[in-house]
């Protein structure tokens, strides 16, 4: 039983820690320490320790997201280097177009250095889609040039005839997804960022 309880509490504190991303380290540690002290006291107070009791205890404490929101408001937390956050988002999206490969990598580095986003958000920002808009643009250019290439060889039929209607639709929708995904990701990260910023 005690291991289930430990796991529930551990998960809760981890979530709290994640929600406090962007806080100055000292404030973050202070809050997590106090909440875990509270949990330890409340736990010692329980008549019998079972899963339901631990869940009730954590419910009374409240959602880590609410605690973090309250802390942002009370402490007037504004993440450090927020100007760089904007640069990170721009470079992630179009950096690879401006400066092939390197531009996007700069975006990734800035993203991971920032304290604004949680690790999960940073993973999404990196993996959806690697290269940002440069990837679909690159694929688009390659596809076009290869078609041109084959028609130079005097065999345009091979290029066009080799692709059925279904395959074309698949390719086009794939391209649309590749174009939209990095835009959606950037919008998502921008929204998370604005949520993290509350002026004192």
């Amino acid at each position: 039983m005690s291991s289930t309880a430990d796991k529930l509490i551990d998960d809760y504190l981890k979530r709290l820690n994640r929600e406090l991303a962007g806080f100055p380290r000292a404030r973050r540690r202070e809050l997590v320490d106090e909440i875990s002290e509270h949990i330890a006291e409340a736990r010692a107070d329980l008549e019998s320790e079972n899963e339901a009791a631990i869940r009730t205890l954590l419910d009374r404490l409240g959602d880590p997201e609410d605690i973090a929101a309250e802390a942002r408001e009370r402490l007037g937390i504004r993440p450090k280097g927020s100007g760089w956050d904007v640069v990170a988002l721009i470079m992630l999206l179009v950096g690879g177009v401006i400066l092939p490969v390197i531009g996007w990598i700069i975006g990734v580095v800035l993203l991971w250095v920032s304290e604004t986003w949680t690790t999960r958000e940073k993973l999404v920002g990196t993996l959806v889609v690697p290269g940002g808009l440069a990837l679909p643009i690159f694929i688009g250019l390659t596809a076009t040039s290869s078609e041109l290439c084959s028609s130079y060889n005097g065999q345009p039929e091979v290029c066009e005839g080799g692709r059925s209607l279904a395959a074309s639709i698949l390719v086009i929708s794939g391209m649309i997804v590749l174009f939209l995904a990095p835009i959606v990701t950037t919008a998502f990260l921008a929204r998370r960022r604005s949520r993290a910023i509350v002026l004192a």
Partner: protein
Amino acid sequence: MVASQDALLAQMRRGTLQYCVLSLLADEERYGFDLVRGLAETDGMVTSEGTIYPLLSRLRRDGLVESTWQESPAGPPRRYYRLTDTGRAALEGFRLEWRRFRDAVDHFVERTET
């Protein structure tokens, strides 16, 4: 109850909560858990216990309370909170204003009920 009323009540709670904390500390120092339970057990004051800790952090930063570590009878040491002189002055100031405000609002709001 209309939505704007909910928001207003939430704002009033938020604004007055810190003075409830200071009041709880007026006569004796208390450790965090004890303080938070004391507030959370009064109906209508806070929605969750955890949201009180950011406030404690703020009060400490503003120098209205201070905390010290003390041994507990059982278990690890506890962080005790107590009022500073600034905190005491802030509480006294609020008490006076609050009474005036409460009486003024009562004067209008309670009249229709009797």
